[in-house]
């Protein structure tokens, strides 16, 4: 890590930074694309990194797509990428339930079909996906039939979220042995066309509040997302660069894992916020200070092509 922090990444520094790492991990929304549009120059950067012998990975908190769906989107936007380089929370949550929770049984899923597919891909059977409107009267709801093979509740983004789903999750979570996992805590979900809707964090807060329990959260800044990549590809943290647009998820993940960190300004966080964190005594906020910042990742291109 650089001795000084929050430094603007200029041409010379870019070259030095790139020489000091073997792998580059990119967040997606606000870094390489916005909605369904690639950030200009981003495909060229990723493709150029690979030509320069660097490994490239995509690490996103978005749980609405499988690895293959992301690979398809990346391909469509001109990025040279394959499914096994993508680490979204749909996939990582499935791996987490399997390997960390050692789940032996089913999971009650508040989430997408993509999450269902990734769970089935690791041999876990989810129940509950899809619309679930309320029926009956209030005194029936505490007695909704529960599947007694369910051993965990997993909450991700779900446009079919409803009171009934919240109720079912609560009934399962009344059993303290039932595990409770959330994909991420982001409060907004970016959409195609630049809009945004309430994110998974909102749904997770509803379930946590009703159950008076805290979920284990898989997504950034939890180090699990990095460990997932590192364990499959044998990464050395000191030779890794994390590139993101959010100080509280991407940069914090980098700090937590001992990676070099680069903030790009094409997304959520600003240099002013980073500098404010830098001035703060609080250790948590110090973790949200990037080593470097850059206007857009396209600005690295000259250093790559030199």
């Amino acid at each position, binding site marked *: 890590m650089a001795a000084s922090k929050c430094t603007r990444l200029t041409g010379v520094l870019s070259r030095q930074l790139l020489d000091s790492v073997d792998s580059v991990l990119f967040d997606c929304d606000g870094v390489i694309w916005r909605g369904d549009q690639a950030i200009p120059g981003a495909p060229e950067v990723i493709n150029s990194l690979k030509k320069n012998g660097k490994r490239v990975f995509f690490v996103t908190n978005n749980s609405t797509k499988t690895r293959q769906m992301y690979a398809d989107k990346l391909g469509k936007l001109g990025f040279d990428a394959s499914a096994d380089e993508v680490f979204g929370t749909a996939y990582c949550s499935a791996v987490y339930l399997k390997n960390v929770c050692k789940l032996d049984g089913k999971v009650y899923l508040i989430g997408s079909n993509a999450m269902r597919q990734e769970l089935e891909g690791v041999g876990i059977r989810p129940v509950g996906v899809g619309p679930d409107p309320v029926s009956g009267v209030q005194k029936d*709801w*505490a007695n909704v039939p529960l599947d007694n093979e369910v051993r965990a509740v997993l909450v991700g983004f779900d446009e079919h979220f409803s009171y*009934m789903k919240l109720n079912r999750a609560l009934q399962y979570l009344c059993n303290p042995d039932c595990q409770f996992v959330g994909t991420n805590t982001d409060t907004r979900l970016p959409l195609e066309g630049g809009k945004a809707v*309430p*994110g998974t964090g909102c749904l997770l807060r*509803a379930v946590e509040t*009703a159950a008076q329990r805290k979920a284990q959260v898989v997504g950034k800044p939890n180090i699990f997302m990095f460990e997932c990549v590192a364990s499959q590809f044998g990464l050395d943290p000191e030779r890794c660069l994390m590139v993101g647009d959010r100080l509280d998820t991407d940069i914090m993940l980098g700090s937590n894992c001992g990676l070099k960190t680069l903030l790009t300004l094409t997304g959520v966080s600003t240099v002013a916020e980073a500098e404010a964190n830098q001035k703060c005594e609080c250790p948590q906020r110090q973790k949200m200070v990037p080593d470097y910042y850059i206007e857009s990742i396209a600005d690295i291109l000259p250093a790559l092509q030199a």
Partner: protein
Amino acid sequence: MAGGGGGCVTLGGAQIRDLLDSKHNVLFDCDGVIWNGETAVTGAPEVVSLLKQRGKRVFFVTNNCTRPRENYVQKFSRLGFADVAEEEIFSSAYCSAAYLRDVARLQGKVYVIGCGGVMKELRDAGVPVAEEEDAEPGASIYTCPLDPDVKAVLVGYDENFTFMKLAKACCYLRSSECLFLATDPDPWHPLRGGRVTPGSGSLTAALETASSRKATVIGKPSCFMFDCIASQFGLDPARSLMIGDRLETDVLFGSNCGLTTVLTLTGVSTLQEALAFRDSQEPQQKHCAPDYVMESVADFLQALEE
């Protein structure tokens, strides 16, 4: 007997009489205090009648926002409580409507996430409610229209809660001029047999997270319900007693409003929990410790029958 102190004192016969003599107004929570579900707590109807015969004013203060007041009148009658008038009943639904009409003096409509009880109280108070359009076949969370007359959002228990409602409410709350109210903070409600169902608090948590705004909460432990009663009946807090079963709502409410507080053990909270609050170092937690503890409101009977 001085109020305050939060000492969790268990009251005996003569002390109960002294306590009642020093108070003119008695405020009861309902669920877990005077009834459980559809069953009156033994002795509760007699206690209420005798208090009134002794010249005390009796009020019922409930966070339950699912019924309009006239339904409560019917429930009181059904469970054997004689002559409980609508004017004596203060529910969070009624008080939310009163707040919008009298305190906020709302000019415009309110967008409601709530159930029939809240809707009826708003209509009775003359507060315009934004109509919920029927979902058209092509409607999605990304395209639904907003009503320009909406100047407030009210969130409470809603068995028909959906992601669409969350997204819509969040859009309205983007304007800082739009008021943000919640009927009550209860994360869950007890049902028969020790079961629970998600409460208003869980839905409010989702919306607060989505909007990055904090709701103004009408229900206990906020003082507004007491202010509502006091504005209609001129109550002196020093001469008022609050009897409840939930430490974090009823007792904290009483404490916040300067009332003497009694915990009854026929509902949610236990003596052990009360003592833990009493012995806590944190001021906020100490305010959840009741002045007095009783097994049940029936303990008042002996003092009242003499």
